[in-house]
């Protein structure tokens, strides 16, 4: 189990490096497909089957299609490779700092609420992550997808319905913006 997770994480890291170092943009996109797929496999290994499906269908499917179309839309031959100057170094340091902070936060179970930042022991009785009334074993016994669905379509019904409004706005916006550019041309 742990070995399998290690292999999947290594593949994700290697393909992520490939995204940055690929000589052509389209190869970066292909490497990103591998990265996203490996992250979805990680979700599967962590017993989050619904996240696995979402990750595959939305990210490896739809979002990657959008990325590839953007690459095809812009002229990929006239690409400027960024040089490793002081700005890149600042960005690298910022990414490293944020990554370390996220690890520290996750390790110590620090949450942010109305009372400001709050540190808690992971696994304590007042664990901020266990907002559900049942433990992890119960979730796995009932089925992860069913548990997500049970919460989504009862407790979080209003956010779910508002999502449809958000998607409606997105569809109208996409069509409206592109129509305008066509009339101008």
């Amino acid at each position: 189990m742990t070995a399998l997770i290690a292999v999947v994480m290594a593949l994700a890291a290697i393909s992520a490096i490939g995204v940055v170092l690929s000589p052509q943009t389209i190869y970066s996109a292909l490497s990103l497909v591998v990265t996203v797929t490996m992250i979805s496999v990680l979700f599967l290994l962590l017993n989050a089957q619904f996240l696995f499906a979402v990750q595959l269908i939305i990210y490896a499917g739809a979002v990657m299609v959008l990325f590839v179309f953007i690459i095809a839309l812009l002229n990929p031959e006239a690409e400027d490779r960024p040089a490793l100057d002081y700005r890149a170094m600042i960005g690298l340091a910022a990414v490293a700092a944020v990554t370390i902070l996220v690890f520290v936060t996750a390790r110590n179970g620090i949450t942010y609420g109305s009372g400001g930042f709050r540190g808690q022991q992971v696994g304590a009785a007042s664990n901020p992550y266990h907002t559900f009334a049942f433990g992890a074993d119960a979730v796995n016994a009932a089925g992860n997808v069913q548990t997500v669905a049970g919460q989504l379509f009862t407790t979080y019904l209003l956010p779910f319905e508002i999502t449809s409004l958000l998607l409606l706005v997105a569809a109208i916006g996409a069509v409206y913006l592109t129509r305008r550019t066509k009339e101008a041309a």
Partner: protein
Amino acid sequence: MLSDYAPILVFLGICVAFAVGVPTLSALLGPRHPSPAKDLPYESGIVPRETARRRFSVSFYVTAMLFIIFDVESIFLFPWATIVRQLKVFGIVEMGIFIVTLLVGLAYVWRKGALRWD
């Protein structure tokens, strides 16, 4: 739990073995007479006129965006389908509201002719 996925792992193993094995075997066993015509992407196909790396029409992008929107809609149907029997009429009604809202979007997109390719 995890052993449920063992057949998929076997399937992946066979896939990789096939994908690596067939080109290796054909390189080892087959005769080799290289010619420029054999290096074409489609041998005996249409002769390429220009490089494949050229700019595409923005229409593809609109199609991709609309695809994402309705893809996100469909992802909600998967968890819903697993518990629709327990939710009974309530589940049908709430998913009905969700889908009708998005049908308004689809009607708008259709009416504006964004699905037409011209």
